């Protein structure tokens, strides 16, 4: 296990370095932030001064090594636009996105697994047909359209739920979150549903497929021949086997949910990290974009690590590090 963690840690660092290089060169290629930041009527002298103060007059490799050196010391640069450390900007916005994503994920799992089980245990029944048809909508309707329809129905027509913002936040154990006030929760419902609909369909289908594949296997029949109750067969024998693919996919999807919550955050004006990214790209605010991507990559790495650990807990055939 220790060997596994160390190896994984070294791999992670390599991934981070490669990402940093790619992102840095990529954003350099997109455009010159000086054009965006400096007023058109500025004199050439003023212009040269701003460029020099941002370090943009230096060659690319020098800019990168300055960045890398600072990054090693925990400084990912200051935002050109806000003139504040970019990492601080990101961590200010990250909790809102995490809150949204995790709520969406819980929603997808809590609804998706039972629906998938229902569907898989009674294949081709009316229930199954309804659930499967529903999940096709979840898959195929674009997220932004779903979001707008949710607003249309629940905010405009029914007037039940607010359509924008994060609402009032409560504090619990030092964490500020919308989850702790009623107002915050009502603000959270629509965007969380919007973000989770696609994943919900995915979880339903994964669970259904898993059940359909596992039920005809010999060990299920053997469990029946042992006189095990149908309930235990489904929730212990079959479910534990389904968990393996489910954890893998959910782990990957959680990362993508975090990284691509942008659409939902834009529609519902959720003050999350995705919106910050879009704004920063538009303004060519390099330090924020680079820092954002590094944070997301770190999160991906972390989630994958957790997935691997969970994996070894669920599947005894995958015991990390070999010898026990």
């Amino acid at each position, binding site marked *: 296990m220790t060997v596994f963690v160390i190896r994984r840690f070294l791999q992670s660092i390599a991934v981070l370095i490669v990402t940093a290089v790619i992102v840095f060169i990529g954003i350099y290629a997109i455009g010159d932030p000086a054009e965006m930041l400096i007023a058109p009527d500025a004199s050439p002298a003023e212009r040269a001064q701003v460029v020099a103060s941002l370090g943009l007059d230096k060659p690319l490799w020098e800019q990168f090594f300055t960045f890398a050196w600072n990054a090693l010391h925990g400084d990912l640069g200051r935002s050109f636009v806000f003139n504040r450390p970019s990492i601080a900007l990101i961590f200010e916005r990250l909790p809102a996105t995490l809150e949204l994503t995790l709520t969406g994920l819980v929603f997808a799992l809590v609804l998706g697994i039972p629906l998938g089980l229902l569907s898989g245990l009674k294949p081709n029944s009316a229930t199954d047909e309804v659930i499967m048809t529903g999940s096709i909508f979840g898959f195929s309707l674009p997220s932004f359209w779903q979001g707008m329809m949710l607003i249309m129905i629940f905010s405009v027509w029914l007037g039940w739920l607010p359509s924008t913002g994060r609402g009032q936040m409560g504090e619990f154990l030092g964490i500020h979150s919308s989850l702790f006030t009623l107002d915050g929760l009502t603000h959270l419902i629509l965007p969380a549903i919007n973000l989770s609909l696609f994943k919900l369909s995915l979880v339903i289908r994964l669970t259904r497929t898993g059940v359909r594949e596992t039920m005809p296997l010999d*060990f299920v029949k053997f469990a029946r*021949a*042992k006189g095990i109750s149908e309930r235990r067969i489904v929730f212990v024998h079959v479910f534990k086997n389904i968990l393996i693919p489910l954890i893998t996919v959910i782990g990957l999807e959680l990362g993508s949910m975090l990284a691509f919550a942008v659409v939902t955050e834009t529609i519902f004006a959720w003050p999350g990290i995705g919106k910050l990214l879009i704004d920063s790209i538009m303004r060519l605010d390099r330090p924020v974009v680079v820092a954002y991507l590094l944070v997301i990559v770190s999160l991906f790495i972390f989630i994958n690590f957790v997935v691997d650990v969970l994996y070894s807990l669920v599947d005894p*055939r995958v015991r990390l590090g070999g010898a026990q």
Partner: protein
Amino acid sequence: MTPVLEVKNLSTHFMTRRGALKAVDDVSFTVGQREIVGLVGESGSGKSITGFSILGLVDPPGRVVNGQILFNGDDLLKMSPAAMRTIRGKRIAMIFQDPMMTLNPVLSVGTQMIETVQAHDRVSRAEARQRSRDALGLVGIPSPEERLDSYPHQFSGGMRQRVAIAIALLHRPDLIIADEPTTALDVTIQSQILFEIKRLAGEFGMALIWISHDLGVVAALADRIMVMYAGRIVEAGRVDGVLTEPRHPYTSGLLSAVPAAVPRGEPLRPIPGFAPSPLSRPSGCAFRDRCARATDICATEPMLEIAAGREFRCFHPHLWSAA
């Protein structure tokens, strides 16, 4: 003595789009107490489905459409699913063909044994564990206490089959149905497992239905043998009689296709043709297309003849001087 199991006119059909597939067709037999019965046939002859029918484990679209299965006098086909569950694993146990597939890969062997104990008896986990450990010891698994915490992938095929046998023995059932339990194993392991099962069945006074396509295995093990062909039992009787003086041409065909039974240098004589598709079985005797002795009369259904403890369905049985 009343028989442990009495199957009467059992028919199990699979409802397919192309009509009813008669996997088991009007099969009757009995299994006496402590008796070891071999059920022999080619793949697709309906022998496994017969076993699953007894336990009520035929998967849809299959269904037992007719017959009675009397277990110690009670008709299993009339039992509620809940009552049937208390029989399965407790009074009738089953061992499957492929030990690599019968144990759940993500549950420890202990868990899978303890749940079997607790499914039928209200005992503490500790006691269930104790009984599981004893059962593992009984089937010859070394250091059973530690092995309880192992997972199936840490066992070899033969060891896994021993675990499956230990599970079947947990409740000392009256009857064990073994569905080709040695087919997937190495020959050396095969004979060990055979020996163990025979010993344990004798020790605990259990009756055994041994389903196999291997005549040699059945000859070594069983008291009585039933030969199945195309969903029907075509011949049944004591092992020594059936194997030395088969009456039904199919049985004799099977015997002359076994390498060990044919003198060295003489060619094997495989049965010509293929077993008929269960969807389009010929009328009358299903074997007549492949049978050298068939005549026109074979197009009608041969009745079951019973002679000198032997049953067979054939118009032109082999005649032996002693018979």
